[in-house]
């Protein structure tokens, strides 16, 4: 068993160090980079917590949509090809629900404060 503090606790300490020490003691350019770095640490923390459950759900949806199994990358490529050729489209049952769910799962990690993400959460999918 590994000792503690946990990776999560250490990453939180790094983000706090960047925000409370580095930014306050740096020239404007370095302070900007440090703010970006602190945001990146936060992103990693969110991904550590969320990605496994999200990707399992994405895999299930892709298999249901495409009717076959494969890795996430293979199934995403297959769906991309079907959408590019027009074999599937926005009105194909399940497509818009899947794309919305997958994109929301990414934004929950990437940019949970993004205005487009907030708007999507407030507004359920339109009837298709």
């Amino acid at each position, binding site marked *: 068993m590994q000792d503690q503090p946990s990776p999560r606790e250490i990453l939180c300490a790094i983000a706090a160090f960047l925000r409370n020490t580095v930014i306050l003691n740096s020239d404007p350019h370095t302070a900007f*980079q440090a703010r*970006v*770095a602190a*945001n*990146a640490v936060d*992103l990693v923390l969110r991904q550590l917590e969320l990605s496994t459950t999200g990707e399992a759900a994405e895999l299930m949806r892709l298999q249901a949509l495409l009717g076959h199994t494969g890795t996430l*990358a293979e199934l*995403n*490529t297959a*769906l*991309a*090809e079907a*959408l*590019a*050729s*027009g074999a599937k*489209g*926005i009105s194909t049952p399940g*497509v*818009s629900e899947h*794309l*919305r769910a*997958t*994109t*929301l799962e*990414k*934004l929950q990690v*990437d*940019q949970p*404060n*993004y*205005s*487009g*993400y*907030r*708007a*999507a959460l407030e507004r359920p*999918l*339109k009837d298709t």
Partner: protein
Amino acid sequence: MNSASHSEDAVRSALAALAPRLRPAARTISGLMRLSGGATQEIWRFDLDTTEGSQPLIMRRAPGGDRRSEAGVGLNVEAQLIAAARASGVSVPEVLHVLAPEDGLGHGFIMEFVAGETLGGRIVKAASLAGARQTLAYSCGQILARIHSIDPGRFPSLAHQTPADLIEQWHAAYRRGSVRRPVFDLAFHELSASRPPPPVKARLVHGDFRNGNLMIGPEGVRAVLDWELAHIGDPMEDLGWLCVNSWRFGRIEKPVGGFGEYADLYAGYEAAGGAPVNREMATWWEMFGTLRWGVMCAGSLAAFRSVDATVERAMIARRTSETEIDLLRLMAN
């Protein structure tokens, strides 16, 4: 190896020697400061000292003086575009001098320094700019109509890009990446199926007219910046790009740059002589702009893994998903 000045001291003495040719009364320069140095351009600020006082100026030049940028129109054409825009009544900094080989500073130009706010997040929020925000969308429409009235025949080196060319170009850029994104494939398919025909009258397109490239003061737009992506094409491209959600800086409910309404943008455009705006086509260009920015973000992954392994580059790559939710919203409408 290289006739252009690299060090700050060399830039200072070359600018001091140039001073009397910028203004006859000028003796020297002071306060030289490098503002930014990206892969495509260096920006320097300095004061031109004359007997009557000093004038703040900006020098934009190629990195190290003479490395040419792959993308973009080039600094000499950029200087000509700014001069043409000024002659058409667009607020831009006055270009005082285009660098010549004998100046020893490489390729670039010197222009007046315009003070004001360029940070998009402050432009949409600052209390001091509340008055400006009331009229900004209308003003942007007027400015774009003036830019689109410039004779494109004066700029023979600029690329001509029809909607079909642009889709092909950005689709190829997307497919050069290693990741397939079903939302992008769907968006390319939809945009391709509904794309506008080549414009009846191709216009000079600014190419990067958005919140972030506008110098704003309490009275409104002080200067239109960053002309390096100019090309000849469909003028609606500029109106759509200005409305891409990523340039609204959190104010999704204000579709024009996070500060204004579509109707005001279009009214300003038409009042200043722009062609009547087809709303459906304007929306097409907004969606195209969203996809273009998405492909640019996605391309940051390859840049991060090769030439630019910075945290900032990594975080731009992770902004790709924001364009995907915007594309899904636009396609649901």
